[in-house]
């Protein structure tokens, strides 16, 4: 399978994301500039962390209008896997590919630390290699990660199993301790923590590996099925 990592002006976790995918799956990864209009050759697309367009106006607000995000919207509609990490999550909510919004942390501090997450859904293409209720260690690095949505939306996310990860101890005041949510079709995931920073021992945790491996396994199975039916 083939991965794309979209690079916006101001992205700074693009290389780390690409390296994490290579390291954990051995797949081919292309860094794709934000003016790309066609991403149909890729099986999975990552919107990386950073400060796209300087986070001017609101985090992710300007990136939403870039050609690459239009292409991401098309591929997400076609069922391709889309993973938004940190600033990528903010871009996905601003683009309405995911509900809610990410606001200033309730304590106003930028937090850069290892946090404990609880896996709330292990049937999605992103989380199938985890156990339900498993506690994993993944670092965060954000000042605007407080997930907000109206109570009806949060209840709907909960009922439909669209909360993928929760914080064991919320570092930012997110409603329902939400750290990561799935899109309606289950093929889009946005999360504030950085799985690409937890893939080898010296990083302090290897719990991020299985997220990329889940995606790899899901896509490869789909490709194998398609070949068998061809």
């Amino acid at each position, binding site marked *: 399978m083939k991965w794309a990592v979209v690079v916006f002006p101001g992205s700074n976790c693009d290389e780390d994301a690409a390296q994490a995918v290579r390291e954990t799956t051995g797949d081919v990864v292309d860094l794709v500039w934000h003016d790309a209009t066609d991403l149909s050759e890729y099986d999975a697309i990552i919107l990386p962390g950073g400060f796209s367009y300087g986070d001017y106006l609101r985090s992710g*607000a300007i990136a939403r209008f870039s050609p690459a995000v239009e292409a991401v919207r098309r591929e997400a509609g076609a069922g391709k896997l889309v993973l938004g990490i940190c600033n990528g999550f903010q871009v996905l909510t601003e683009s309405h590919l995911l*509900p809610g919004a990410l606001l200033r942390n*309730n304590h*106003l501090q930028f937090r850069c630390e290892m946090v404990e997450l609880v896996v709330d859904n292990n049937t999605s293409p992103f989380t199938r290699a985890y156990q339900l209720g498993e506690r994993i260690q993944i670092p965060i690095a954000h000042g605007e990660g407080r997930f*907000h949505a109206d109570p009806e939306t949060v209840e709907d996310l909960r009922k439909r199993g669209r909360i993928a990860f929760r914080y064991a101890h919320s570092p930012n005041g997110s409603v329902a301790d939400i750290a990561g949510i799935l899109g309606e079709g289950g093929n889009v995931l946005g999360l504030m923590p950085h799985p690409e920073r937890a893939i080898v021992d010296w990083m302090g945790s290897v719990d991020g590996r299985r997220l990329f491996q889940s995606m790899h396994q899901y896509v490869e199975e789909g490709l194998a099925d398609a070949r068998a039916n061809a």
Partner: protein
Amino acid sequence: MKTFDVEVRVWLKPSVFDPQGHAVEQALHTLGFDGAQNVRIGKYMHLTVTGETEAEARKSVEQMCERVLSNPVMETYAYELKETVV
């Protein structure tokens, strides 16, 4: 074609916690301004727009506010618009 001067204000909805407003409110209380309450921090934007009529200009500004200048999920906006006299 007329030109209009537009002032847009954007701030968090009343239902959304505003940590900046809260911190400023605490600071005001520390300084002895005990009566200061419900502090909300927002953004101010200034622009000019052109249009054939004021109604057309207003419609355009409202679309800008809904689609770009504010995020209706968490924010609300207000604006003032007046024709610039050359």
